[in-house]
């Protein structure tokens, strides 16, 4: 680990000013993502500005929706009755991620800002454009089992690992920030960017720009999150899918579908969304939409499995959200989100 200074911020303004004027400074909140990267030698900041004590820890009603303070813990957000009832996809995504210990300290701003799980990013001896611009991308010809199907570039094929970011993208959440140039609002799907030739930039946030809240807009439809992983708990998604459906009588008025762990950002399946609007939900329709969503997938050497897996998962997420199939567990819980469920007794095998 490299030596660094640590400072606790007293106000959002002060935090922004301190980081803005020091190119070697970064924010730290719960530290669950940041400290690992310090220890791996991936980050070598000169100054850590701790924003975890800022008064950004409330969930409040806001314009018919909810405002979730940047410092609200993942546990508190997931457990909020308002979140759980009105935006179950958010609770499901949070609860299907990490462990209860990590969620207790992880913040709602820190979660979507965690870095990729591309293993090469975490080994400073490996080439990685995201860690060290211009050094190359070891994953491109290396072991790319968890890497991207969509929107990748020759410079980087990493995926974004956050679960809740996928749900927030499907719900068109808005990110409120305070930056060097003052406050601004960012539509969640615009927060993260594609790698292009500058994969070291995950988001459009400027240096010193602080997230103050994540706002969930008014929403009366149903939302749901599904995740496939290599172990039943405490593992990142191989593929995930969040759906937000609004109905108009028997027909879908608007469908929003975001896929997780398939791109450098939560991947909105816009072609599928367009196919679903105005249609009556059927399995056939959902299959066609999923086919459309994955038509442009560009698998690498070790991740082709994500195409059939993602397609099936999207169909299932749509079936479950539209009640054509039952949820796997109570809405708003990890059980609803976890494909395959947990180990243990079969109730009544036939």
């Amino acid at each position, binding site marked *: *680990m*490299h*030596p660094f200074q640590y400072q606790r911020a007293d106000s959002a303004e002060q935090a922004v000013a301190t980081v803005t004027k020091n190119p070697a400074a970064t924010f730290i909140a719960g530290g669950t993502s940041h400290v*690992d990267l310090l220890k*791996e*030698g991936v980050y070598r900041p000169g100054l850590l500005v701790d924003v975890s004590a800022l008064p950004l820890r409330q969930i409040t009603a806001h314009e018919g929706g909810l405002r979730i303070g940047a410092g609200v813990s993942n546990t508190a957000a997931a457990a909020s009755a308002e979140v759980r009832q009105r935006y179950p996809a958010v609770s499901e995504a949070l609860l299907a991620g990490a462990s209860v210990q990590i969620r207790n300290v992880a913040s709602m701003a820190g979660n979507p800002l965690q870095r990729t*799980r591309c*293993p*090469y990013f*975490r*080994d400073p*001896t*490996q080439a990685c454009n995201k860690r060290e611009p211009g050094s190359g991308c*070891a994953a491109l*010809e*290396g*072991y790319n*089992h968890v890497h991207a199907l969509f929107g990748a570039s020759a410079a980087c094929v990493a995926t974004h690992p956050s679960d809740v970011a996928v749900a927030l993208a499907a719900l068109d959440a808005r990110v409120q920030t305070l930056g060097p140039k003052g406050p601004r609002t960012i539509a969640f799907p615009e927060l993260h960017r594609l790698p292009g030739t500058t994969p070291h930039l995950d988001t459009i946030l400027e240096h010193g720009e602080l997230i103050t809240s994540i706002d969930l807009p008014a929403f009366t439809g149903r939302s749901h999150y599904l995740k*496939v*992983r*290599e*172990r*039943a*708990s*405490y*593992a*990142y998604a*191989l593929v995930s899918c969040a759906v937000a459906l609004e109905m108009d009588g028997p027909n879908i008025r608007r469908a929003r579908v975001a896929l997780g762990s398939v791109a450098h950002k939560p991947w909105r399946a816009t072609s599928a969304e367009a196919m679903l609007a105005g249609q009556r939900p059927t399995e056939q329709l959902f299959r066609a939409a999923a086919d459309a969503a994955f038509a442009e997938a560009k698998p690498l050497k070790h991740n082709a*499995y*994500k195409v*059939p*897996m993602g397609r*099936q*998962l999207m169909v*299932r997420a749509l079936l479950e959200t539209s009640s054509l*199939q039952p949820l796997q567990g109570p809405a708003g819980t990890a059980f609803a989100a976890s*494909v*395959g*469920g*947990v*180990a*243990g*007794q*079969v*109730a*009544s*095998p*036939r």
Partner: protein
Amino acid sequence: MLATGKPLDRVDGRLKVTGAARYTAEWEVPGLAYGAIVDSAIAHGTVSSIDVGAAKRAPGVLAVLTHENAPRLQPIPEKVGETQFRGEGGITETRQPLQNAAVEYAGQPLAVVVADTLERARYAATLVRVSYAEQAPQLAMATAGRKTRPESFLGNNQEKLQVTIGDPTAALAAAPVKLERVYESAITHHNPIEQLATIARWEKRNGADFLTLYDTTRGLEVLQEVMATSLGLPKESVHVICPFVGGAFGAKGWLFAPPLLTAMAARVVGRPVKIEWRRQDMFAVAGKRAATRQTLALGATREGKLTALRHDTQTHSSISSGYTEPCARVTRMMYAVPNIGFAHELAHLHLPSPCPMRGPGETVGGWALECALDELATELNLDPVELRLRNYAERNPETGKPWSSKQLRECYARGKALIGWDKRNPKPRSMREGSQLIGYGMATTMYPAGRREAEARATLFADGRALVQSATHELGNGAYTIFRQISADALALPVERVRFELGDSSLPKAPTSGGSTTTATVGPAAQAAARAVLAALTDLAVRDAQSPLFGAAAEAVEAREGRLVLKANPAKGEEYGAILRRAQRPSLVATAGAKPGEEKEKYSFYSFGAVFAQVRVDEASGSIRVARLCAVYDVGRLMNPKTAHSQLIGGIAMGLGATLMEATHYDPRNGRAVVRNLADYHVPSMADTPDIAVEWLNIPDPHISELGARGIGEIGCVGTPAAITNAVFHATGQRLRSLPLTPDKLMRV
């Protein structure tokens, strides 16, 4: 009332849960300095230059050791005890650290930076600049330049690796039913919770160098010997201490670079040095289970009688180790087959060295065999259990020796009842629950029941307490607990009055804790020492005119509930303490050893068992969950059902991990372990682990020792992978022949 056989709570449980048990990295040694490692970014080549200037100038740095300035080491010994160290089939990596510029695997230690704090050492290590003359590494078994066929496993004449019994080729050709399949298993890592650590302290004793080592080892004596040989010291000048090991599973026994680097660093800076390895490093220096590619060929009659069995393994080791995963360990002994052949081919790759891992050979070799048998059962339309019964071996098919004790039929029968085997629909892909497919599978399991030689020392104190000591290890296996129980029984004392000490090379010798032999090895030694001290006490009593036992023949006296009494008249006698106090002896000590005898030549010693699994498969996502596991074991007499239960279910959970999720990948170009953390290297979580129903027959092995106890540390891991894999076939109708069965595997078929 005997203490053995009782579910005594772990005697060190409170120490462990309160943090009071002292693990290696936690010893407080005055004047300690800290080492940090610079490792190799490439897998093959030489270090052309290594710039340590900036590191040396960094604050707090005391020294930087590289191959250019490190103390010279003697070669690793050819053999230690019976175990072959060097050469093909030998157990260890023979390259000594920091002796030359050659790089043989990525992650190889290239420099040690020593500083006054851990943080400063680790920071300075990032300032070392290494340049390499790189060569193309050999990273794939198929294309390896150097392949060998080791004669035997660890130089053991009883365990040949290239064997033909009868004529398997002809028998296969003539068999009415034939089946040939290839099974592949991934590299897995032990990943004990406690990472490797060593503290080394040099001092002068009587003018000569003396080295004290605190090390995460499960082989005190082997480490002592390797350190002494490498450093050119008499063995007595090395003292190794390790009262608690935080899990090993086969690691922490046979790879010596970590303690050697620490000892060299301490020598150079003239202060005690600690090196604690990071989790990342564990994927390079701590050993692993190598990948395998196994070809199984089975010949059988239509009635399901096996006529031929071939098992050919390709596996890999590092450049300087000959360690070979012995995959035919189950094949060679499990079924009554007249024609058996097996071979092992070892590819030497530019990858870190492998070493034993829980059920070495048995876990993945048994998986391949038991899956192939399941495939044969399907082919013959026979119940998988019935197929195994038709080939039940009444004697060891390789040696012809009778088993010391075998109750495998009972294991099958009880396991079937536990899981409800006969209630299943045997047709593949015929059972569902909701959207999930349900399947049942089974496998036979075994583990060789080894016993070695050990010594122990027993001390009786005048206050009525006793202490028994032996240089064995507490790996989390319950050693402190069961040896206290065994000692208490042998001393005829209640367990509360007896302590057991281990983990120090100055105690009477015990072998490396491995191969599930510790109970069968150290238990009899503890008994022997207890008896020796009681004999000495008897001797005191019968010569003491004031003793009620005065003048009695030693044979007429026995120990009972803390007293020596006349066998013929147990009311006549006295407490141990009374005898010692009168003799003005604060304590009485005796040391004794125990080793296996000619029974070893007469019988074939194995534990057996049957594992049954029920799985749920979510086919659309490829997710497999284990619904139930039921296992029944014939492992001799249990010393403590509580610690035994933990060992068995722990082994099963580890087998479950190897089956469903564990795998390490090395980069196909530079050979570095790609994933090096426990967030992305998956071991089973609670949510992956169902209730595990474990039963044991608890029938003493009449030949292994008077205790009748065989080892139980590894058998749980064996068998579980095949039971689960076969259940996945029953659920889905798909044969998955590549471990682990991660969701992508079902996507491909």
